């Protein structure tokens, strides 16, 4: 009996994989039904639907990049402290001192790539008309995921705390002070006042809520850090689950109905 067979016949192996190797038709079906990760997929799909030239695989690549970002992000969090004193220095150390210091590169380029692959995925879905009934709702979920992907990238942009970071965020968040009714330089902000006192000032408007301060500062860094590492990833994870589940429920992967 070879080592491989001994392992596969052991009680431990059998407790994890409850059936023989997926080498024949029966076990190839069983593996899809009994494995937690694989049961995301159905047992069989239309051959045409998984042709690369048809489906481009961009949704899958986007999900893969999300996993890459999660993994490299956790590794970066081991070193990075979101304070004015340490943020920049920690990024410098990640570049110069930390062994295998390629994780920041992987994380940043992965973020750019994820934005691009999300767009390409949506482009393919549009061009094949795959948003049409019965998949309308999943397209809407996809648009929210697009928005969250951009916000993930945007909040992460601030964390290196260099000139590129704070000024990009300053330019981006300056818009918020012009939010209609809720920004202190937005149209209609005068309406919201009580007894002659303005409710919407530069210390209470939409921009202040976003930055946690009047200017991009330590409060902003902390706020964006929490959004970037906890709040938005959780929201994305939830919506991804819904997105994948609805692919199955709304007629499977794209293809002529």
């Amino acid at each position, binding site marked *: 009996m070879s080592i491989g067979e001994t392992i596969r016949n052991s009680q431990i192996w059998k407790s994890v994989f409850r059936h023989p190797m997926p080498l024949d038709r029966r076990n190839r079906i069983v593996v899809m039904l009994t494995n937690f990760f694989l049961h995301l997929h159905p047992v069989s799909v239309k*051959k045409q639907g998984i042709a690369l030239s048809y489906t481009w*695989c961009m949704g899958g690549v986007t999900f893969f990049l999300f996993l890459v970002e999660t993994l490299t992000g956790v590794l970066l969090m081991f070193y990075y402290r979101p304070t004015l004193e340490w943020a920049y220095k920690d990024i410098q150390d990640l*570049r110069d001192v930390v062994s295998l210091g390629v994780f920041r590169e992987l994380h940043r380029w992965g973020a750019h*790539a994820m*934005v691009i692959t999300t767009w390409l995925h949506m482009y393919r879905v549009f061009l094949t008309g795959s948003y049409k009934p019965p998949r309308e709702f999943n397209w809407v979920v996809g648009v929210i995921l697009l928005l969250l992907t951009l916000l993930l*990238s945007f909040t992460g942009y601030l964390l290196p705390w260099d000139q590129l970071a704070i000024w990009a965020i300053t*330019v981006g968040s300056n818009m918020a002070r012009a939010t209609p009714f809720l920004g202190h330089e937005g149209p209609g902000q005068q309406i919201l006042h009580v007894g002659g006192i303005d409710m919407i000032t530069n210390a209470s408007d939409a921009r202040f809520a976003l930055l946690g301060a009047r200017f991009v500062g330590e409060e902003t860094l902390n706020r964006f850090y929490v959004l970037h590492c906890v709040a938005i990833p959780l929201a994305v994870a939830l919506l991804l689950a819904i997105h994948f589940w609805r692919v199955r429920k709304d007629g499977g992967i794209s293809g002529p109905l």
Partner: protein
Amino acid sequence: MHGSHADFLARIQLGLGFFYLLLAAMNWVAALLLWRDGPKPYFKLGGITVTNVFAWLIVGGLFLIVAPFAMMGSPPEFSESVKHVINELSGPVTLTVGSLVAMAFLFVFRGWWTKPPIAWLLLNFSLLAMGLAVTDANFFEIVGKPDNVPIVGLVYLLGFFTWLATYKAVINDDRMAQGLPPIEKTEDEKVLVWPDLVYTEMICMVAMTALMLVWALALQAPLEEPASSVKTPNPSKAPWYFLGLQEMLVYYDPWYAGVVLPSIVVFGLMAIPFLDFNKAGNGYYTISQRKFSYIVFQIGFFELWIVLIILGTFLRGPNWNFFGPFEYWDAHKVLAQNNVDLSQYFWGGMLGQGMPKAPAGSGPGMEFLYILWRESPGIILTLAYLVLLPPILAATVFRGFFAKMGLIRFMIMSNLLLLMISLPLKMVLRWTVNLKYIISIPEYFLNF
């Protein structure tokens, strides 16, 4: 710019040399694949039949000859006069109008340029142009910025996938014109996910991991000086994927360009499946079966998103001034800007009188009425555009749409469409007649 041109060429010679080698290899691999399938004649030249294999061997050979020159620091370059012409031609007007014309051309002649030899030739041309352009230090500095590299990648990826999708759509449309089903409907064979799909997924993951590692090792993530709230960089730019919106700030105030417009874009994207009542084209590539939605999407995606990102990233320099791709980003470039509001045109220019102004000492209500009166031309125009045009459209060009969509869906669709068109409209008005605002009420931060 800094240092001599020869120094700059020496800096990029190795990369550029390999770039041309890559182009040679690319064409030879293509020739090899074509040869495997059996050479086909392309055209006759002086009695000699040139086959597809031979043609791309020659093209690859030409790049191979160029490569050592590039590697030794004397690559082929655009002449100064060509660069000057390109700089002049790539102003915002020609860029946006030109790309619209180009898109119309590509749309009409989609049966021609999607033919693989033509597409391959176009790819070769674009890569050659890239090779010629990077020998300019000003061009290289902007395009070669680590954070801008993804955009170059995005442009080529979009080109490739647009070709692929259009190629498939053209074939399907031809088939359907003959009464045949689209290719996607001819095969309904089912395969097991294990192994057919999971293996593809694994290969994709391995390939992506390799790609990401190579990218990460080759290009260091940017890290500039430590943040300083007193040293404002010029230009200050948002992350690249928001630069289309930042470009919109030139034409609209932040409340619209930065808040309302993005919200409308998101809402409009979400509304697509509920507005597109066309049942055809579900699950296969086609253009002729869904021309309207196709054209609207392509204009929105390419013209109003991608082109504006390219404009904002590569062609907007200090003070958000426009710079040609081969122009030095001079922070002292001064452009005379004398933009005029519509109300100023109306009261001053047309009627030859002063702007209406509330008499001194009048209450806020009176002031408000005078502001409305002052801006009435713009307000009436905007309301007419958004309120009067949809019913006119419903009764004329979109009569069929209106009948199928019903009132609410039609009103939402036509308003989204009109708001979308208003972007290039306002841009053109700015460039041609220096129009600043259609409605200008700085008193309430309400400029439109």
